[in-house]
């Protein structure tokens, strides 16, 4: 435990904190502390979810506590002088009260420790009730009782499909054989999603504890965590956590004095989205090409090396210790009838409070985006929210009152998916977004099913010609036909859901497709081939910023005189629009 009288300085060093420059801030604090010989504790923590305020620094002193946001190395001296030495918080650096209050609109079960404890300290995890659920399960509950508790909690898999976790464990436990495997799926491939990364970086022990409890329940003695290669920090922290758990006897033989033994290994992915699919993941752990296979048999019967295997997602597992400690009833008290508990969402895109939030299931999309997420950044209008990544879809403003639960989201044509929510404003072209996702799935198709391999390529080609202004009258029909066939004839979820981004945008934003094809106009004024840039005479003061930023030397004009853009030279990157403070450059239709 901490000694209360000492001041603690805690720097947020999840990937987001580091990406915002957290390591430099940490180093500067260290210098200040060392050079002045201060008796304070400098610590690091993971992601608090307020990524939009990174670098976040918490100073905990008897005089007051401040989460400081957007901390730069230059601010460090003042924080040390004023808060640490004089005992006053520095009000102008504090995270605004309103933003801090937004945490109370959340229900943090999975994220209970994220940003609260040091991810590299098993002691801090233990002092927050860590590994108590494991002890409870091993000492007071039979495997059947554990499964029953999880079943009654109503927990459904957070990896995307939403299969009831307790039922899945039941299958694996009934499967015959004395050698079984338990796999944690940390492949998180959906672009725009980062829940699993944050959990692993901020609270790795909760996932390990969830795996241990699950393995005890189904009778597995060997586990793997399959982590994608793009997450080096998560891998590093998991390695530390596994070693610590081994040293304390939570991994190994006779765990907490019981007959249960468990070995755990990390497998690093090698870059293939399809390996998130469970049968492909198994094939990849076996050292093969990560190609999905037909189910049944399900992994619970015939999985890794032909043995019964259970696979769960990171977030699913992080829920487990909480449910065992607090009980199924407490968990099921959150959420809706069919979707119990909470869901973590990764808010990104054009949203003000981008980051991680955890809310009770059943909250409306509107509340998640406009209340918890504080609405659209940059003074723009909400247009759509993308849910479920390449398997999901774009939900329009008219459906913002849809509650977030599996069934309601499915009805919109999108899917809940793993929890990535990319918010889009009116500057984003929906046809381009469909093209973006088809490009992704087309790249990531493993090639096994013909329709997935070739069909997605054809769809991509059609979308590419539409955004370039070369679309054909029949193209929409063609897209719909291809979408149907690909969905029906693909073996795995990748192909089956690949058409979703196209189908949802066609359903809700058909006018955008039509205007691209019929009028060669992009309503969002985003598609490069269909727009040009023009200087608005009355607004331009001739400051020269656009001339400086233009990579193509397309803007000319003397200082303090009207500038002009040479359309032939212009590469339509839009950097001048972003740079102009006077709003003097407009995107206009080219045709």
């Amino acid at each position, binding site marked *: 435990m901490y000694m209360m009288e000492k001041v603690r300085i805690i720097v947020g060093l999840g990937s987001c904190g*580091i990406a915002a420059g957290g390591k430099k801030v940490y180093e500067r604090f260290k210098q200040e502390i060392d050079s002045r010989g201060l008796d304070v504790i400098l610590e690091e923590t993971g992601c608090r979810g307020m990524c939009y305020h990174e670098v976040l620094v918490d100073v905990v002193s008897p005089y007051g506590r401040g989460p400081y946001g957007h901390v730069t190395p230059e601010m460090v001296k003042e924080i040390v002088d004023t808060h640490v030495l004089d005992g006053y918080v520095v009000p102008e650096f504090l995270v605004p009260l309103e933003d801090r209050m937004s945490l109370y609109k959340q229900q943090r079960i999975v994220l209970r420790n994220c940003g609260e404890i040091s991810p590299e300290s098993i002691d801090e995890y233990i002092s927050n009730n860590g590994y108590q659920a494991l002890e409870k399960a091993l000492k007071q509950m039979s495997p059947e009782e554990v499964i029953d508790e999880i079943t009654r909690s109503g927990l459904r898999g957070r990896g995307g499909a939403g299969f009831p976790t307790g039922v899945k464990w039941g299958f694996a436990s009934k499967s015959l054989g004395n050698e079984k495997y338990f796999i944690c799926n940390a492949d998180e491939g959906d*672009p725009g999603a980062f829940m699993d990364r944050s959990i692993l970086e901020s609270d790795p022990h909760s996932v390990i504890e969830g795996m241990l409890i699950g393995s005890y329940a189904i009778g597995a003695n060997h586990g793997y965590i399959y982590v994608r290669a793009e997450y080096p920090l998560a891998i590093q922290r998991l390695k530390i956590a596994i070693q610590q758990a081994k040293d304390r006897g939570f991994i190994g033989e006779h765990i907490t004095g019981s007959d249960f033994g468990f070995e755990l290994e990390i497998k690093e992915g090698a*870059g*293939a989205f399809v390996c998130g699919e469970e049968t492909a993941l198994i094939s990849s752990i076996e050292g093969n*090409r990560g190609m999905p296979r037909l189910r049944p048999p399900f992994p619970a019967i015939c999985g890794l090396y032909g043995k019964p295997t259970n696979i769960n997602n990171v977030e699913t597992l992080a829920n487990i210790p909480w449910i065992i400690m607090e009980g199924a009833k407490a968990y099921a008290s959150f959420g809706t009838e069919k979707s119990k508990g909470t869901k973590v969402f990764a808010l*990104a*895109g054009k949203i003000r409070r981008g980051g991680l939030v955890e809310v009770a299931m059943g909250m409306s999309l509107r509340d998640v985006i406009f209340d918890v997420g504080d609405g659209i950044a940059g003074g723009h209008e909400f247009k759509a929210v993308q849910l479920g990544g390449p398997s999901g879809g774009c939900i329009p403003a008219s459906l913002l009152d849809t509650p977030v639960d599996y069934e309601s989201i499915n009805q919109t044509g999108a899917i809940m998916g793993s929890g990535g929510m990319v918010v889009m404003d009116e500057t984003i072209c929906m046809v381009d977004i469909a093209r*973006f996702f088809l490009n992704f799935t087309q790249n990531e198709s493993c090639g096994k099913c013909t329709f997935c391999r070739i069909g997605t390529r054809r769809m991509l080609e059609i979308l590419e010609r539409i955004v370039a202004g070369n679309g054909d009258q029949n193209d929409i029909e063609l897209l719909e036909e291809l979408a149907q066939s690909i969905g029906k004839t693909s073996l795995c979820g990748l192909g089956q859901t690949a058409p979703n981004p196209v189908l949802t945008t066609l359903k809700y934003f058909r006018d955008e497709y039509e205007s691209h094809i019929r009028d060669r106009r992009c309503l969002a004024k985003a598609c490069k081939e269909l727009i040009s840039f023009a200087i608005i005479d009355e607004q331009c003061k001739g400051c020269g910023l656009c001339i400086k930023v233009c*990579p193509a030397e397309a803007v000319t004009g003397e200082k303090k005189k009207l500038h002009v853009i040479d359309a032939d030279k212009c590469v339509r990157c839009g*950097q001048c629009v972003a740079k102009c403070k006077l709003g003097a450059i407009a995107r206009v239709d080219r045709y």
Partner: protein
Amino acid sequence: MCTCIEKQQKLGLILSEYQNKSGGLIPVLQKAQGLYGYLSEDIMFKVADGLGVKPSVVYGVATFYTQFRFSPVGEHIIRACHGTACHVSGAENITRIMADKLGVEPGKTTADMKFTLDRVACLGCCSLAPVVMVDSDVYGRLDEARVEEILGNY
């Protein structure tokens, strides 16, 4: 082709470590690439030999995963994110700016072998989009000035 004895010895050790382990091919390829920076034909043959599998199997697995490379890479690898959040936050321009500054197209390596510029799909820091990763350091909230500053670090 590698002439360095030390690396060959290390590869030998890796191969003997995984020789009798199931599922060893991918970790071996990852470690071999860590050693040499990429997988040459010669290395893939050695891996096949060392693990007792057919060269076609090694090649089949290696080419399936985007992590593996078959030509030499620069000293630093820049991964420019083109995930959804970065895409809607101007990733295309950031990559363009980097490509212009480095004088190299995405997917290629600079003539002085200092940087390889790659496009990837989501680095998991979407709330700080647009994002790039240089080796294992992630940088977010990029604009032209910050790109310049970051490249200057290396």
